């Protein structure tokens, strides 16, 4: 039985449950002479630093050094756009780190940071997204996605317009940012870092230290969650630790506490959308005009590609013949908003789903009918010119799920329930997801691997992807075992390191398995073909007719006459045949013109749909999610237990974003929800008591490793059905008319929607 497709536990599960799995900050206590780094953070949203007095900190017992801009050996920059000074002369948001204190103990570092004196000249700040739009406080370029002639909108039978504000989301990975740096006797800098993008961390560390990349090694053992929050945000912290280690000769540990993490690092972008849409007499979308404004915070980092993905997903599963969407990244004095699972896709998709949810009653059709009516048909293209491959799968998912969830019958039962209960209302909604897979930025769609077979037949694999809980390493082990035809226990995986596989892409965009799996498979195939050549002479068959399976090697059709894999490996060694290979993968057929916003940015689309049923209490707006049914297209599942976990976890995370998680900044730009006691993510109480998740059958994806499909991000957007069910249930307190609902749809937001529905 091949390892691929087996339902196995996470490769580190036994370590997780026994507390033995190590994370970056667990490694520090193994080191002696360790220094702890602690930041001095700005209390102002925007200010010039007039004077920075570090001498008082140095008087505190245990304080060893205070790192400032003067200490930078290379470039004072922590970003890839050169707009993020590592030590700023002008603070750009509340919480911005000004300098870092290094001390023998964390407490001494904290006291040292408190002793540093900073004199500021306070400057005007832009806090809200609305203000940024009004003041045209933008960064990056205008992005424009257009097709057809939106002037036709005015001739549509039904025209609607509106505005919609979408809240952001804190990643709240349980493990906050952490780096641990040391320098060896040869001057090689070694940084252990909780990073989704070791190569970029390496590059930033190198340029801050003024070193070539080969003098810096970054390793990521595993992360305690990433979700995009560790794609670009870790680099500066790694650079601080590395700089400290270089200057003091002692290992430096830097771990943010929760409030530091929340006040210093970027989040999911809040968005503001303004739209106008036209439908024909059959409720089909004729044209859409929209403006999307994202709140990028103080610097660009990934805001432009996030916005691009939002624009590329405003169509979701729907054919929009005439469209014009303009996007801008706003510059505000807040944390630099960044990648977060879905990467703009959720915000873009939410805009169209919100529109459909709002206008369905005005068009006199049910939400599920309006949606199905507008699905892409075979041969149709997206607004950016890509043919919607397998577009018929959307209807197949939809129909199957409507049946398996008993949608119609439950809808009728709900009508009866609602008639009997004046103070409680229920509703059921179904929404679709079509999500493009591949990095929009074509160059990132490559990956490398290094696979080594030792003389005893044991296999060690390295690849460029990072493990953050998504089960990537588990899948890589399964792919290697299957490709080499050995059992899983013969394959081991080494931690992700930049000195094993160079020039890696971020583990992001749901692409970790597609890309790294392709590279691991490629490396294994190279080794296998060399071994096949050795074995073929034993069997007297063509090398292509040598079979590797379950640790045995035999000629096709003659499994009884087999040799152990290790035996063939040993022979290869003595015949001086290489037993290791570097694998490489590049996704074929991609091209993208990011100025014209046109091309074939995606290898394929992931399809899915979800049905959610909610009940609202009319007195308070409090609600419960009663049942969720999901049908999702993941191709041929590589690892079912892991894939189910990705879908469920993504859905609940999406539901958190849309209903519960409520980022608030006050008028001075201070984040009011900066801890676990004020920022609430879903707990056990938000889990639906009935939660059915199924994979779409017969969905093998050709050209992707073992017929699989990416699964990391698309399920987040399945949660939109929760929001639509809440809207419908709130409307049921009135006449069921069109209803606006704020996002996140907290109990308070639902309460105000009920009020509107009743009036």
């Amino acid at each position, binding site marked *: 039985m091949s390892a691929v497709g087996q339902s196995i536990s996470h490769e580190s*599960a036994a370590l997780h449950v*026994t507390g033995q799995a190590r994370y970056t900050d667990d490694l520090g*206590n193994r080191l002696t002479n360790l220094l702890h780094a602690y930041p001095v953070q700005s209390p102002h949203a925007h200010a010039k630093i007039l004077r920075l007095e570090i001498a008082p900190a140095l008087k505190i017992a245990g304080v060893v050094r205070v790192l400032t801009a003067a200490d930078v050996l290379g470039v004072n920059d922590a970003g890839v756009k050169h707009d993020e000074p590592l030590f700023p002369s002008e603070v750009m948001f509340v919480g911005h780190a000004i300098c870092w204190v290094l001390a023998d103990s964390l407490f001494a570092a904290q006291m040292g940071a408190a002793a540093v004196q900073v004199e500021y000249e306070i400057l005007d700040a832009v806090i809200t997204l609305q203000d940024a739009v009004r003041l045209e406080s933008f960064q990056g370029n205008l992005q424009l996605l257009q097709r057809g002639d939106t002037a036709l909108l005015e001739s549509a039978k039904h025209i609607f317009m509106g505005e919609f504000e979408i809240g952001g989301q804190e990643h709240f990975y349980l493990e906050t940012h952490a780096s641990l740096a040391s320098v060896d006797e040869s001057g090689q800098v070694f940084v252990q870092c909780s990073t989704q993008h070791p190569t970029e961390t390496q590059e930033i560390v190198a340029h801050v230290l003024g070193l070539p990349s080969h003098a810096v090694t970054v390793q990521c053992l595993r992360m305690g969650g990433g979700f995009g929050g560790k794609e670009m945000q870790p680099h500066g912290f790694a650079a601080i630790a590395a700089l400290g280690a270089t200057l003091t000769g002692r290992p430096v540990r830097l771990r943010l*506490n929760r409030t530091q993490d929340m006040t210093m690092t970027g989040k999911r972008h809040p968005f503001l959308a303004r739209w106008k849409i036209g439908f024909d007499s059959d409720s089909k979308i004729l044209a859409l005009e929209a403006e999307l404004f994202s709140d990028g915070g103080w610097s660009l980092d990934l805001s432009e590609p996030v916005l691009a993905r939002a624009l590329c997903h405003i169509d979701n599963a729907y054919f929009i013949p005439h469209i014009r969407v303009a996007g801008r990244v706003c510059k505000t004095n807040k944390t630099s908003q960044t990648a977060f699972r879905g990467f703009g896709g959720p915000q873009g998709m939410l805009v169209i789903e919100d529109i459909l949810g709002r206008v369905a009653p005005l068009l006199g059709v049910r939400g599920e009918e309006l949606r199905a009516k507008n699905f892409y048909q075979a041969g149709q293209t997206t607004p950016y010119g890509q043919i919607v491959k397998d577009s018929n799968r959307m209807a197949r998912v939809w129909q199957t799920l409507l049946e398996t969830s008993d949608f119609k019958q439950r809808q009728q039962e709900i009508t009866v329930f609602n008639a009997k209960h004046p103070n409680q209302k229920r509703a059921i909604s179904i929404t679709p997801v079509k999500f493009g897979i591949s990095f929009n930025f074509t160059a990132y769609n490559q990956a490398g691997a290094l696979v080594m077979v030792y003389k005893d037949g044991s296999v060690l694999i390295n690849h460029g992807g990072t493990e953050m809980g998504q089960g990537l390493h588990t899948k890589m082990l399964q792919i290697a075992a299957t490709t080499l035809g050995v059992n899983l226990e013969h394959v081991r995986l080494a931690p992700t390191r930049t000195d094993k596989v160079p020039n890696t892409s971020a583990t992001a965009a749901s692409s970790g398995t597609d890309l790294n799996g392709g590279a691991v498979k490629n490396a294994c195939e190279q080794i296998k073909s060399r071994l096949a050549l050795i074995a073929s002479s034993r069997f007297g068959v063509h090398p292509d007719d040598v079979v590797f399976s379950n640790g045995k090697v035999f000629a096709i059709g003659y499994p009884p006459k087999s040799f152990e894999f290790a035996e063939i490996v040993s022979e290869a060694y003595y015949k001086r045949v290489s037993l290791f290979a570097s694998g490489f993968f590049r996704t074929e057929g991609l091209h993208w013109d990011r100025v014209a916003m046109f091309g074939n940015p995606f290898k394929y689309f992931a399809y899915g749909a979800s049905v959610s049923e909610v009940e609202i209490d009319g007195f308070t707006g409090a609600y419960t999610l009663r049942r969720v049914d999901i049908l999702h297209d993941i191709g041929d599942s590589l690892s079912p237990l892991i894939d189910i*976990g990705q879908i469920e976890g993504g859905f609940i995370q999406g539901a958190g974003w849309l209903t519960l998680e409520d980022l608030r900044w006050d008028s001075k730009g201070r984040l009011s929800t900066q801890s676990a006691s004020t920022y609430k993510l879903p*707990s*056990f*109480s938000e*889990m639906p008591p009935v*939660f059915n998740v199924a994979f779409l059958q017969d969905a093998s994806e050709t050209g992707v490793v073992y017929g699989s499909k990416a699964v990391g991000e698309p399920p987040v957007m399945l949660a939109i059905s929760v929001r639509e069910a809440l809207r419908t249930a709130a409307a049921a307190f009135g006449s069921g008319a069109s209803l606006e609902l704020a996002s996140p749809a907290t109990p308070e937001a639902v309460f105000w929607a009920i009020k509107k529905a009743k009036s």
Partner: protein
Amino acid sequence: MSEINLVLNGKPTTATIFEPHTTLLNWLRETGLTGCKEGCAEGECGACAVLVTKASGTGSRLTSVNACLVLMASLAGQEIMTAEGLGSPNQLHPVQAAMVQTGGSQCGYCTPGFISSMADEYYRPNRSGFDLEALSGNLCRCTGYRSIKDAALGLGLPYPNDALRLRQNIAAPEARVAKIESENAVFYRPANLEDALILLEKNLNAKLVAGGTDWGVEVNLRFARAAVQIAIDHLPELRQIHWQTDFVELGAALTLSELEHQIGDSIPLLHQWFPMFASRLIRNSATLGGNIGTASPIGDSPPVLLALGASVVLVSTNGERVIPLETYFTGYRKTLRQHGEIIKAIRIPLPLAPKSKFYKISKRKMDDISSVSVGIALKLENHTVQNIKIGLGGVAATPLRALETENFLMGQIWNLENVTAAAQLMANSGTPLDDHRASAAYRKAMLEQLLLKFFAEVNL
């Protein structure tokens, strides 16, 4: 610097405590037991949960607590068990094996804490099912919880010869009199109430520490330090429940879990309220005395206790005095408790009002801080209001009684018309504010709505 002896994962261990504010979390991590994680350092996420052996009847209970809120100084002589101690990768404990099988760990960072809380519930004596509420204080950002739920619900009962199950038949280690000191601070665990009161009289600004679930947050997040801390959670005089004919006294230092277990449903309003108070992890340490002692306007106990007409029993070297809770709070985090006084018990008059409810408005259903909370206790006679008490939280600088609303309803017929008029009065109670939890308008609306909701629910 002081040393204490404790039992860590079954092994007698000597711990050196350099500073009396050192938390169990930090000490464990420095010891190398890094399975204990800091996710928030304020008892909200449960990533640091570990098991402490606590007293239960004649035996003991492995009790899951947030290690970030436990001071090492308080643990002299105690027994601690972490995920590392429960099992090893080659010899998994049943709860660990269940979590591996169902895919209950993804990134794994929260997992050791979940294992602790799951083991606590696994060893609950006379358990039939698995109460998922046991996991209400543990957050997971990856799984969406279904796989963890399946792991929990699929658990069998511990074998009769399971060592930890047998351990629970034996009494927990007693609290040891201790003095833990550093250059600038000292932590005392006095032998008895008398000693505690004398110590307190000598150190009027001393910090009294019971469950430490509020104090620990101050220590961790705001670097609060007290020159003198006095532990009172073990004092027998503060750990009793006395049923009298006209009142019941609840010991101020009983943890909420202990109270919940010991009073069952004999006080229905409290029975309904317990699960809404923070999380199981917090209730395993937090005390009623502590919740009143911090005098937070958004503490969850005052609204129910106000509705129950409760009083606070204070004790000092001068003796005891009893103060009605409704006059106890004098301003934002200010009370009538004087230096030298300890909250000994909460006194609830009997008989109880026949109809009562507690409502908590929050974004999340489990383990959230309320924006508004309301406790209501009602006695009707011939459809007429004979007595009603309404306690409010979150709408003023102190918890308060909705006296105007109560007075309006007294003697009135309990019907929708009168209750609607009363609800409009209730909407004007207090001075609700706008903040990140809720708008003032919503808080005001909730005051009105919750009385109407009470009417709808008690009339069902």
